[in-house]
């Protein structure tokens, strides 16, 4: 099934591209948005992911699903962005905006904030597993890390998040 999709993507069949983008873009955007904490960056990286994917669709061998493959590209785009972003971080006038955009997700403020106090590798594993609902093997495919490492990161991420959220809950209770 995916081989047919790949063939159509290679010839840039418009309908296929439309469906392909529609099927995956929200998923990838959410992943990138939660990793980058910045709406516009996430949009750009999502777009870049699709462009990279379409350019290298010939190299898609079907060893993993299209979704996993796209996540791997997205993850690499994010990793490249993060390297660049760190150089800019404290001095770039836009980083304050990233902070304010956290407010976009009021409903999940507690968890969202707590997520970003995690080590990046733990955050990535947590988002891929819990939010993107990938299997450990798929995450391994995306990040290039061994399954055991991912398990460990997930464990530590959950523990830390639980601790932080429990702390927030207690604060809320005390305040009321």
């Amino acid at each position, binding site marked *: 099934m995916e081989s047919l999709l790949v063939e159509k993507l290679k010839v840039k069949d418009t309908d296929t591209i439309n469906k392909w983008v529609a099927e995956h873009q929200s998923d990838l955007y959410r992943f990138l948005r939660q990793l980058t904490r910045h709406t516009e960056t996430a949009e750009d990286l999502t777009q870049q992911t699709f462009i990279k994917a379409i350019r290298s669709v010939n190299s898609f061998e079907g060893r993993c699903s299209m979704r996993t493959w796209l996540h791997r590209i997205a993850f690499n785009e994010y990793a490249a962005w993060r390297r660049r972003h760190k150089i800019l971080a404290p001095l770039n006038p836009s980083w304050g905006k990233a902070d304010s955009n956290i407010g976009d997700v009021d409903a999940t403020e507690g968890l969202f904030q707590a997520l970003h106090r995690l080590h*990046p590798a733990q955050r990535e594993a947590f988002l891929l597993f*819990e*939010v993107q609902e990938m299997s450990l093997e798929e995450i391994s495919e995306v990040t290039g890390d061994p399954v055991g490492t991912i398990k460990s990161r997930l464990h530590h991420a959950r523990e830390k998040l639980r601790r932080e959220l429990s702390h927030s809950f207690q604060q809320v209770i005390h305040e009321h």
Partner: protein
Amino acid sequence: MNINDKQFKQEIEALKEESSPSSLEARIVNAILDPKKNKSRYAGRILGVGISTLLVGAIVFGATMVPRVATAAAVQQVREAFGGVTRYHTRTYNVIEGRRRKVSDSYFEGNRRETFITNSNGAVIKLPEELEQYQENFAGQVIDLSPSQLLDNRKIINVMVMIAPDSISDAIVVDPQELNASQETQNSGKDKPTKNSVNEIQVVPAFIGGEYGIESLRILLKNEDLWVIEHGIILNGHYTDCYELKKGTIKFVVFVDATSKLPLLTRQTLEIEGEPLITEVEYDYGGTLPPKDFSVQSIKEE
């Protein structure tokens, strides 16, 4: 009270509800189907980001802390990008409770720099030469932070320098026990530093923003011949960007370059009390020089 499984799941489910903007899909499809358009859009974007990166590098890092070889390259790139511009002005604000307070103006011309800071009394003073010199010479040297170099509501409790972990990506989140163990090995002099070990990493405090105050640390990582810069602090054991700081005690873990040929690897942990500041920086390039009457000026709030 601990969060239970159900509550935890509910929090995660809420994260899944984040949706993409409705315009994104069409934008992506257009970008794929119209590579020419896409190319120009990205060319502009990359140039924009690249220039600001270069400028930041040249203005702040290049002029102050980055080793000379990196400085020259960064400055050269900026000159090329801006057709020979060599003068810059940066203005730094701290943002406290939504209000911006100007705290410093720095003027750069060639290798010369003058910085004016707003101190805690609201007066603008020129950064003392010795501190400028201190910053200039900082890369590759032992970090020596004396409390007198910090002001008012910030108080250094103690300072500790730790050596770097094995991997650059983990350099900013480390287990102090592991570090201590590694440090003992390093100090023993029996083992050569390994790749990506302490000899390739150094950390300097960032003097951006607050009144001499250290708001973040700049971690300089040497990867082959390229120096890259990481920022961050460790807050309650977690890596965080400086703008995520909350009230409370902040612990800084400092890495120091072991190739500096200076006695080092003293162990220090820096804790600062007080409310961290959030800093914004504005850039202005193209020939601004310090006004002659700039030395005294009252605080400005916007």
